[in-house]
């Protein structure tokens, strides 16, 4: 609890002390980007997970999608998407949303094989998500299980930014207002039909660029201003 107050860099060192040698240890060994950095000059990784539910202790990661944003350009060459093999049956009600079937999942790779790549890509970078608890908690739960330590990462959360923008303008927030696909049209961003981890990660990346350009038009964007307080 107090760790949050002491900052991410402190949390990183605490976790590093606990982590067994391996991918998480290597990841945690890389210092975080300075909060004073200009977002326009750094590399950010937009990521989205599809899960079977909301509780990391009971539910599973179904797929992972990510794409890098380098100096405010989204590089599609970095796009990465994987289906995770889940040993439990996928609950029918969630399959409607992510459209991943048991068969597809069975053809995927175990999370233990995928997590190292995710950690490698995030090392020394910033994680960009829309509503961070899902990604943070699910990846952290997987890390605890596989490497014995939590996942610590500096995070930009577009949902939080949207909330702040609404509050600053004294807008009352209606249910659904903060959803990724309801926010995008406000910035003249196109509607994507597909709904999967990679297209959502891409949609989040675009939304972030739009938000940052609108908050700091043509000016440096201090990373600290965007980092999640969670």
């Amino acid at each position: 609890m107090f760790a949050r107050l002491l900052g991410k860099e402190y949390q990183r060192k605490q976790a590093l002390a606990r982590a067994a040698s391996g991918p998480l240890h290597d990841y945690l060994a890389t210092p975080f980007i300075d909060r004073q950095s200009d977002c326009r000059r750094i590399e950010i990784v937009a990521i989205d997970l599809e899960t079977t539910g909301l509780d990391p202790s009971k539910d599973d990661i179904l797929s992972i999608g990510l794409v890098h944003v380098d100096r405010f350009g989204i590089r599609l060459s970095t796009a990465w998407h994987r289906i995770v093999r889940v040993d439990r049956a996928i609950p029918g009600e969630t399959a409607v949303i992510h459209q991943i079937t048991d068969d597809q999942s069975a053809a995927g790779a175990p999370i233990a094989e995928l997590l190292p790549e995710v950690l490698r890509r995030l090392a020394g970078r910033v994680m960009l998500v829309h509503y961070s608890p899902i990604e943070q908690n699910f990846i952290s739960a997987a890390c605890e299980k596989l490497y014995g330590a939590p996942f610590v990462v500096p995070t930009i959360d577009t949902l939080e930014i949207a909330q702040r923008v609404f509050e600053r303008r004294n807008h009352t927030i209606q249910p659904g207002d903060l959803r990724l696909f309801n926010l995008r049209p406000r910035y003249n961003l196109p509607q994507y039909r597909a709904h999967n981890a990679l297209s959502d990660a891409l949609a989040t990346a675009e939304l972030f660029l739009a938000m940052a350009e609108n908050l700091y038009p043509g000016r440096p964007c201090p990373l600290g201003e965007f980092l999640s307080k969670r």
Partner: protein
Amino acid sequence: MEVELIEIRQFLEQRNPFFYLASELLDELPRDIEIRYLRRGSAFPPQDGFLYIVRSGAIEIFDEDDELCEKLAEGDLYSVSCQLVNLSQCSRGEASEDALLYMLSCTKLKALCRASPAFSEHFSASVKERLKSAVSTIQESADPSVATMMVEVGSLIRKPPITVASGMTIRQTAALMSNKDVSSVMVMQDDDLIGLVTDRDLRKRCVAIGLTGNEPINHIMTRDPKTIESTTLTAQALMTMTRQRFHHLPVTQNGRLVGMITATDLANHQSANSAYLAADVRKSKTVADLVEVSKRLPNLHLRLASASVTARHIGEAVSCLTDSITGRLLEMAEAELGVPPVPYVWMAGGSQARHEQSSHSDQDNALLLSDDFDKQRHDSYFEALARFVSDGLDACGFVYCPGNAMATNPEWRQPLKVWQGYFSRWIESPTPMSMMLSSIFFDLRPVTGKIELFLPLQQMILKKSQENRIFLAYMMANSMQHRPPLGFFRQFVLERGGEHDETLDLKHRGIVPITDIARLLALSLGKEPVNTVERLRACAGTEALSEDMAENLEDALEFIASLRIQHQANQIRKGKKADNYVPPRELSELEREHLKHAFRVIQTMQEIMVKRFGADKLG
């Protein structure tokens, strides 16, 4: 490919020129893209060395004088920073709406260009090549099942020329003919065509007279056969064949042998053709008969439009028929009114004179009378004659000219000296009125009557207008009221200054400017042709008009006119009245693209001419 990037692939694959790329290349393409967001008001392009594709939002591009040149919307491309030579003066801009941009490095673009010539053509700097391909695309898209006589013979050639060398034996030649399954061969001496041999020659000049077959082919060939150019219309080729009783005609392109056309080829090719209509016009006994025949004109227009017929040839076909109808009406009038008291020439003006009529054009005409004309004694005859013909034309669907530029108007029914006076006045002291008349009376062509009367008038017009720089300056200034738009923006026509229009007036924004340019050039150089393409060709290669520009203008005209004909054909098919107004949503992406290039050609030439004729210096 990551299935998830399919969204981006799909966006690209339906867009020009990406749809030309092979599927494997399209699969790879999203991976090479970088995405950027520009807030409204940000400078564009954000970075050099990239091709930009607008995914959402809008970008305005300006020239060096801060004039809007172009406005890009969803799906539009900006390739200026990838072009080796930057020909465009329009190279900077800004986002006029928040915009999401896809970027592709110039290096990658070059690789794609190497992989696909069709894709590459889109980025070629040559407007000429693009317009050429535009015209052929529109013709290919037409329905080829309706064959007509308005096609150029070159398009009927299916095989390369089958030739034998001079001195080959008759037997060798016959063997080659049966081997190639042809009924004729051409005999060559080096690169020159010296003779023609047909099946019939083998029968009549060899077997029938008992030659052995070992004699050289030169013995039995037809020497120096007549040839035709590949651009000759099939109707004309057929006429040559029937008149001279040939069944085979070697076809040349710029003098080079390209193939052979036979009477059978032509016969197979004819169906709905204007020749039949023309014959029926001649057979008509009464105005009512002519009206009946004319009812088939819109249908002819439709059929020609749905066949692979160029806009130019359709204009020619319709104008020729109008000429025939006019001629037949005059014969009927003379039969009724008696022999004309003095010689006259019936003149056509405007689109009929230019051979650019469509089936629903209105009539523009005038009477040129001999100077022996005495108004008191003779005018009642010519008034009645004019009335008869004009009413007849109207009944046939060529409605009265709303500006009253018709021979029924006593002003336009005058002896030569009065006409010469008119033109002197119009040319020497131009007024807004004379400028208005210029598009009718400076396109003037004798249809029938005593043609000699017309020549002195024509010579006078050409001589005087050539010498009068002020007249030419006025004409140019006047023609600037019809300027092409900048292009398109979403579902609108983009105007100068950034306003948007709902529809594009193909006639006044595309065809009229080119017609005006050609008229003015011809008048300034004293060239006789009246048809726009002929005028351009006659002026090409002079100081006033480069060969390249002439060709670009001709292609631009053909493209815009073809679009108009297709648009009108669609309206006629739907039972609507044909007009010139096309909403941009009816245009394909490719057509919009080509139109934009055509507009640029027109705009460039207009700017050159305004300077050349000093139209910018008029008060």
